[in-house]
């Protein structure tokens, strides 16, 4: 009986440690072999070359992601100063068209789903964003209306992430995503 209890305790502890450590490791987004400022991507998303950890991360946080030749997915969990993106803060995302046929920036809650908001607005893309005179764009993200390109972050107080999708990226972007100029994310203010 004593031996059985010891075996059971060992099994339960190992199960919690093993599964828990795996799930903890998978919380860090889609993997990050390449970083451009706060934007992170993995070169092997969707690819058969993906290592088991990347494959598991994609399954958890980006199921049915396309491979890099078709789409490059960048995700930002922080602003350009390295501070975690928070729903109660307002941000300006400033940049110009990345080298791709079409792009979009979408905000997601920590659970990887779109953030509920009364406007039902979740993203802006190359075909919908209002531009400055020089062709650049300023997208705002935050709880309060700000500018014409506003992505509401709802009424929650958790963290959020931004995903930048580059559909049919230019050849040089596929070859070396680290050299792409991507938008800067600047924090403006926080309500709490």
């Amino acid at each position, binding site marked *: 009986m004593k031996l059985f209890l010891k075996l059971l305790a060992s099994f339960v502890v190992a199960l919690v440690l093993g599964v828990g450590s795996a799930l903890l490791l998978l919380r860090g987004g889609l993997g990050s072999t390449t970083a451009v400022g706060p934007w992170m991507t993995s070169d092997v998303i969707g690819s058969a070359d993906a290592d088991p950890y990347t494959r598991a991360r994609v*399954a*958890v946080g980006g199921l049915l992601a396309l491979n890099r030749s078709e789409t490059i997915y960048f995700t930002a969990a922080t602003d350009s100063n390295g501070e975690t993106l928070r729903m109660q803060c307002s941000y300006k995302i400033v940049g110009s068209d990345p080298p791709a046929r079409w792009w979009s920036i979408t905000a997601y809650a920590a659970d990887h789903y779109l953030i509920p908001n009364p406007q*039902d607005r979740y993203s802006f893309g190359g075909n919908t964003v209002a531009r400055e005179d020089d062709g650049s764009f300023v997208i705002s993200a935050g709880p309060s209306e700000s500018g014409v390109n506003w992505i509401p972050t709802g009424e929650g107080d958790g963290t959020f992430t931004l995903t930048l999708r580059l*559909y049919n990226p230019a050849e040089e972007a596929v070859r070396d995503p680290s050299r792409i100029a991507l938008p800067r994310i600047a924090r403006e203010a926080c309500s709490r």
Partner: protein
Amino acid sequence: MKTWPMWIAGTIVLAAVFHILTIFALPYGIMDRAMAGIAAQAGGVNKPLYPEPATAAARGIVRPSPDLLYTACVYDVGARPLRITSPVPDTYWSLSMFAANTDNFFVVNDRQANAGSIEIILATDDTANGGNGAPVVVAPSSRGIILFRSLIASDEERASIDAMRRQSGCEPL
């Protein structure tokens, strides 16, 4: 003799085994759940599903793009090959296929298709024949997901793109 060092070592080894099993099994488990959800809504495997554009209420697939219209089909080519057909709209469009372990093993977009419509045979080997010379894609797993993406280029074009993607289909040969 003290046995607790042996118990600790054994527990750590067992924990490492559980860790590795979780990492390897999770993609299959999550794909299985996604396939079950799509098939349930579509009325079975090898049948297309035409969901509405993603909103915050959508809880099927993580990180959906709200700018795209998706059409999904759970494939099962274990018994018979599958004929996949779709019109190709004049906007960003792609047809992609995902194996049971989440790998994106095939993708073609509107520019590569370079035609008004596309037909592809999905099978477990390259001897499958659709009867009209349609290219054959070999699936690395007998079950998986086929996904069509159509960009909603503008509000004005939304209805026509939606009508076109509803002509996409997948049916056993």
